[in-house]
C-alpha cells in the first residue's frame, strides 16, 4: 500500500525543513515521527475499506502508519503558530493537516496566567495521546475512546485557558481551566452509532472523509438515505458548541482532567450531502499517575450520548480504559484494557446501533537510540455489533492483531 510519492515528498519536505532550521534555528522548531508498520490480523475488512472491522487494516499489511511533521513558528510576541502535518499510506487522503492553530501565551508575573488557542486543535482531555502529533505515548494504537477522539473530535474554534502555577505559588498543586467554543463538529457521533468504537492510530485529516460499512438502514432511501461515510469536521447547523475542562496536577506525578463536551448541534438539520447533525455530549474523566519513576498508571472514563433527528437515532455511549506502563532502561512494557459500549434507545429499531466489546493490548517498545525505536504490539479484542447481521456478518467477532513497527524520530 505504500505509494512511492509519499516517501519522496517526505524526504524532500524533511530535508527542506532541516535545511531552513539549520539556517534560522531561532525562528521555529520541528519535530517529526516516521513509523513503518507490518500488521497482521484476522479481522473483518476494515471500516476504511467499507468493511465492518474495527482495526485500521485487515489481513497482512505494510503501512506508513505515521509520518508527522510538527512545527512551531514564532509569528509575534508570545504568539506561536503550531501545525501538525501528516502523511499516511491509507485512508481517503494521504496528506494533510491534523492540527493548525495559533497559541497566544503571554508572560505573567503572578501565579495565574492566561493563554488561548485559535484554529484546529484537540481539547486537552487525553492523558494517553501526549506524544508528538497527538500520538499515544505508550502504545501504537490508541484506546477505543481516544481512537474515536482522533477520528471525530477536533475543534475548529477558540479556547481560553487560565492556569495557576503550583511552582510559582509554592504549592505542589497546579490547576488549569479551559473554555472552548467551536463550530464544525456537527457530524461528531456518526461513527459511534453507525459503526461503533474502533481501535487504531489513524487520525482524521482535516477535510478528510471516513468510510464505514454501507448499512442498509443508513443508505436506504426508505430510512436515512445518508452516505456510508462521514466528514468529521463539518458544520451543518451554524450553531456554536462548547467544552469546559478542569485539570489538576500534583507536582508532575499526578494529573487529573475532567471535561464536559457538548457540540450543541441541532439534530434536525441535514446538509446537501445528507450528512446529519448529531447532538453529542459527554463527560470525560482522565488521570495518569507516576506511581514510581518507572511505572505509570493511566485511567480514562467517558460517558455521553448522541442524538440525530427527533430521537431517530439516540444512543448512550460509554468507554473506559486502564493502562500500566513500565520502563526499564531502553525497554518499555505496557498493557491496556479497553471497554466500550454503545446502547441505543430510539424510534428506529431497525437501525441497529448497539455495540459493545473489550480489548487487551500488550506493547513492548525498545529504544535503539534517541532517533530509532522498534515496537511489537499485540491486541486481542472481542466485540458484538448488532448491525453486522444486516451485512450478513456474525454479530460477535473475536480479533487478534500483531504489529511490528519501526519508528524514526527527529
Amino acid at each position: 500500500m505504500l505509494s512511492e510519492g509519499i516517501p519522496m515528498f517526505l524526504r524532500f519536505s524533511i530535508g527542506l525543513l532541516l535545511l531552513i532550521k539549520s539556517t534560522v534555528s531561532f525562528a521555529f522548531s520541528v519535530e517529526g515521527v516516521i513509523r513503518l508498520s507490518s500488521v497482521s490480523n484476522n479481522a473483518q475488512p476494515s471500516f476504511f475499506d467499507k468493511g465492518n472491522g474495527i482495526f485500521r487494516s485487515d489481513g497482512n499489511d505494510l503501512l506508513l502508519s505515521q509520518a508527522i511533521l510538527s512545527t512551531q513558528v514564532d509569528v509575534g510576541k508570545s504568539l506561536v503558530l503550531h501545525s501538525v502535518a501528516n502523511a499516511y499510506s491509507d485512508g481517503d487522503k494521504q496528506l494533510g493537516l491534523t492540527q493548525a492553530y495559533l497559541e497566544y501565551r503571554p508572560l505573567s508575573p503572578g501565579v495565574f496566567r492566561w493563554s488561548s488557542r485559535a484554529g484546529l486543535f484537540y481539547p486537552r482531555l487525553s492523558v494517553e495521546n501526549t506524544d508528538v502529533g497527538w500520538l499515544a505515548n505508550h502504545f501504537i494504537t490508541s484506546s477505543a475512546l481516544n481512537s474515536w477522539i482522533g477520528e471525530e473530535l477536533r475543534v475548529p474554534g477558540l479556547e481560553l485557558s487560565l492556569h495557576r502555577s503550583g511552582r510559582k505559588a509554592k504549592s505542589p498543586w497546579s490547576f488549569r481551566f479551559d473554555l472552548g467554543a467551536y463550530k464544525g463538529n456537527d457530524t461528531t457521533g456518526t461513527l459511534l452509532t453507525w459503526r461503533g468504537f474502533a481501535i487504531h492510530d489513524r487520525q482524521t485529516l482535516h477535510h478528510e472523509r471516513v468510510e464505514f460499512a454501507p448499512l442498509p438502514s443508513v443508505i436506504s432511501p426508505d430510512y436515512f438515505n445518508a452516505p456510508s461515510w462521514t466528514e468529521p469536521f463539518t458544520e451543518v447547523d451554524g450553531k456554536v458548541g462548547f467544552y469546559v475542562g478542569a485539570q489538576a496536577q500534583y507536582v508532575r506525578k499526578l494529573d487529573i482532567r475532567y471535561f464536559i463536551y457538548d457540540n450543541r448541534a441541532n439534530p434536525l438539520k441535514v446538509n446537501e450531502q445528507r450528512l446529519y447533525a448529531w447532538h453529542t455530549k459527554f463527560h470525560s474523566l482522565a488521570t495518569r499517575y507516576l506511581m514510581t519513576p518507572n511505572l505509570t498508571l493511566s485511567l480514562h472514563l467517558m460517558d455521553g450520548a448522541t442524538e440525530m433527528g427527533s430521537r431517530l437515532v439516540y444512543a448512550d455511549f460509554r468507554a473506559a480504559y486502564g493502562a500500566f506502563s513500565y520502563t526499564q532502561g531502553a525497554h518499555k512494557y505496557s498493557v491496556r484494557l479497553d471497554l466500550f459500549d454503545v446502547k441505543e434507545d430510539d424510534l428506529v429499531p431497525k437501525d441497529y446501533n448497539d455495540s459493545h466489546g473489550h480489548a487487551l493490548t500488550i506493547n513492548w517498545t525498545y529504544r535503539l537510540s534517541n532517533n530509532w525505536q522498534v515496537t511489537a504490539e499485540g491486541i486481542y479484542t472481542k466485540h458484538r455489533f448488532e448491525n453486522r447481521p444486516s451485512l450478513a456478518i456474525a454479530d460477535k467477532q473475536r480479533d487478534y492483531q500483531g504489529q511490528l513497527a519501526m519508528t524514526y524520530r527527529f
Partner: protein
Amino acid sequence: MIRYCLLFLLFCHSVTASQLSVNVVDDSGNKVAFAAITLTPADENTPATRHHSKDSVETMAQINEQFMPYVLVISPGTKVEFPNRDNIKHHVYSFSEAKTFELELYDDFDGTPVTFENTGIVEVGCNIHDWMLAYIYVTDAPFYGATKEDGMASLTLPDGQYNARIWHPNLDRREGNKDYRVMVKGNTTVSLALSYPLLEGFDFSSGFSDY
C-alpha cells in the same frame, strides 16, 4: 635588600590562593544542595580582592527541560548566557526586581547574554515549561560559590578570616542573616550548619510534561 625580599615573600604569601571546601548541612546534619555561599573578609588583614572578572560570562543552560545549574551565584555586572540544549523551544524569563528579562530560545540557540547589574535574587522561569525554575544570586561579596548535590562547595580565596553567609531558595526566614566565621589557612574544609530545617520544597524536576 633582604628586607625587600622578605616583604616580597610576605606579599606572595598573603595572596596565595587556598582551596576552601564548604559542607552545608541543615539542623539535623542532612546535606544541603544548591545553597549559595558568600564570603566577606572579617578583618583588615584579609584581602578582599575579587577574583571574579566582571567580563566573565556565566552559563545557565536548559537541559532536559531543567535549568542547569539550579542556583548560580554571580557578581553585579556579570553576563549570563542561557543556551538551549533541548530540541524544543524555551521561553526564559524573570520578573524579579533585581532583573527583568525574557528570551525566546529555540533548540541549540544560545541567545544574547543577559547582564545582571543589580544585587539581589533573580527567579528564572520558562513560560512554556512551567515547572522549570532556577535562581541567580547576584552578590557584592568578593568570594562566593554554590553547593552541588553532595552539599559541598569549593572556593578559591586567600588565607584569612571571613564572614560566610548562606542563602537557599527554601531557607527558613528564622535563619536571618546569620554570619558564620570561617578561618582559611591553606586548603581548608569547614562545615556550616543551619539552625533550622529547610522549608518544604516540591520536586517539580521530573514527571509528566504538559502538552
